[in-house]
């Protein structure tokens, strides 16, 4: 197991020693994430898996700058990201173009007042891009004219998530962080979104950081994977290797708990020591 970032010359996103703790009521601090390091190549795809409380969402939020790390750095294209939003508008926008995010719940991650087209135009205007691009972006994620004038509540879960992806792409980010982005979707829709993300990755060279509790999904869409447990990275490496020959007990436990043909839930229980 290696916790060192593979700091190749080709790395686009380099995360080094990220750490975040929260004060607990009374004394002491909760370590939400500790010494998290990894790197992602341009157009690469990294999965972060773990159960609730593993710290995977905290890491995602530190990547986009919603949570300020206690320690550690996030570097995109060789430029370290400032831990807090810069005061200057241009610096803020430049920082936004480094990393964008798609959230889990498409029902609350879109502004309820704006139609799909307005949502994209707001973002395009903010970044000084041509607002006419909105139509092309919608098309890119498989939304048509009818959806362009619809507000989020008139869209289905899958359509909302497509819009959320289009909104992230409107910024032309180098890295896209997906926090359980397909967890709330029906399986048939989930597969559509995964396929869309794969196409976008190949066409634009955007790197994906795929945060998920679903090992099967992560196996399908990522090259490398990070397994987190209680704030720490217990195992990381190429996805196929980690899932086929897990080195850490916790990874094995997670894998044993995934239902499949001939699976016995009992089998996953005693393993939990």
């Amino acid at each position, binding site marked *: 197991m290696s916790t060192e970032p593979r700091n190749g010359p080709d790395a686009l996103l380099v995360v080094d020693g990220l750490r975040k703790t929260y004060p607990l009521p009374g004394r002491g601090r909760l370590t939400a994430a500790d010494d998290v390091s990894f790197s992602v190549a341009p157009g690469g795809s990294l999965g972060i898996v773990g*159960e*609730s409380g593993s710290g995977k969402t905290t890491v995602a939020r530190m990547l986009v700058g919603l949570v300020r790390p206690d320690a550690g750095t996030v570097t995109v294209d060789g430029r370290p990201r400032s831990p807090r939003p810069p005061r200057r508008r241009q610096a803020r926008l430049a920082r936004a173009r480094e990393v964008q995010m798609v959230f889990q719940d498409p029902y609350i991650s879109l502004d309820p007042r704006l139609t799909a087209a307005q949502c994209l135009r707001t973002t395009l205007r903010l970044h000084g891009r041509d607002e006419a691009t909105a139509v092309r972006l919608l098309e890119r994620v498989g939304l048509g004219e009818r959806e362009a004038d619809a507000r989020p509540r008139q869209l*289905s*879960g*899958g*359509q909302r998530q497509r819009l959320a992806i289009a909104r992230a792409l409107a910024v032309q980010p180098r890295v896209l962080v997906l926090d359980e982005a397909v967890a709330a979707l*029906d*399986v*048939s*829709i*989930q*597969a*559509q979104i*995964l*396929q869309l993300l794969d196409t976008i990755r190949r066409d634009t060279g955007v790197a994906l950081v795929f945060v998920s*509790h*679903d*090992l*099967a*999904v992560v*196996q*399908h869409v990522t090259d490398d994977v990070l397994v987190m447990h209680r704030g720490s990275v217990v195992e990381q490496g190429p996805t*196929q290797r980690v*899932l*086929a020959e897990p080195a850490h007990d916790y990874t094995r*436990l*997670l*894998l*044993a*708990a*995934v*239902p*499949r*043909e*001939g*699976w*016995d*839930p*009992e*089998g*996953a*229980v005693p393993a*939990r020591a």
Partner: protein
Amino acid sequence: MLLTLDHLTVRLPGTARPVLDDVTLRVAAGEVVGLVGESGSGKSTTAKAALGLLPGTATASGTVRVDDADVLALTGEELRRHRARTVAMIHQDPRAALNPVRRIGDFLRERGADRDRAAQLLGAVGLSDPERRLRQRPHELSGGMLQRVVIAGALAARPRLLLADEATSALDVTTQAEILALLRTLRAEQGAGLLFITHDLHLAAAYCDRVYVMYAGRIVEERTAQAFFAAPAHPYTRGLLDCSPTLGDTSRPLLPIPGRPPSLGDAFPGCPFASRCPDAEPACETWRPEAAELPDGGVAACRRAPAAVPTATERNLS
């Protein structure tokens, strides 16, 4: 037969199609029956029908029997007893079933367990220090622990039929495995039937004896768990399996089903899946689905079944 739904059709005002359309389903005592499908397919309504909990504005035809009671005809005290004693429901969100200001002990006593049995049940569902738990309130416990409490509550009444509606979907996989192992033991001990509703095909196939697949309010396929995976007969079932990521199977690309699951506003003159179906023929657009017996005893509601059913080997080759 413990639970029998016969040609149950449920309509709600203001919808283009029935919520449940000619649903026939059986659960025997001691059996685990899976019910899978996507949003709006009618899974939860099926469970509610078994509880006699259809919305007041709904109109229903067909029958729902639990043991020998005609559930849709039950009223007053009988209906209350049916919901409290005969059938127990476990939802996805345990907090919905628990009153936040009442203690865990009160919750179990309401369901007919005295103090000793309540503590014994909490122990049986794997909660440590049951005596202390009885005095705790829901906010003091985690989601997984609360789901155990709800299951203990469901078992307190010694129900004949357990309905689990996405009961483990919100839980971590390791917690899910524990809860499932628990439900299986308790079912074996009490001989109850379990209707297990889930969106997770792999879970349904791994955990259930038989599986029903629902689409647009209809049962499209009913198979034993093995046959469900090895030789799915309905194109929708095949589509679902082909688009579900499977652990360990990395060579196969995910094949999404085009379009979206139908809402209650979509009506269909013929087979509801025809517009998304790769095998559809023009005649499917007008064919009213009816269940066709398969050679292995399963049932599929496809115009082209059983003729179009590929064998397991054909599937693996394709």
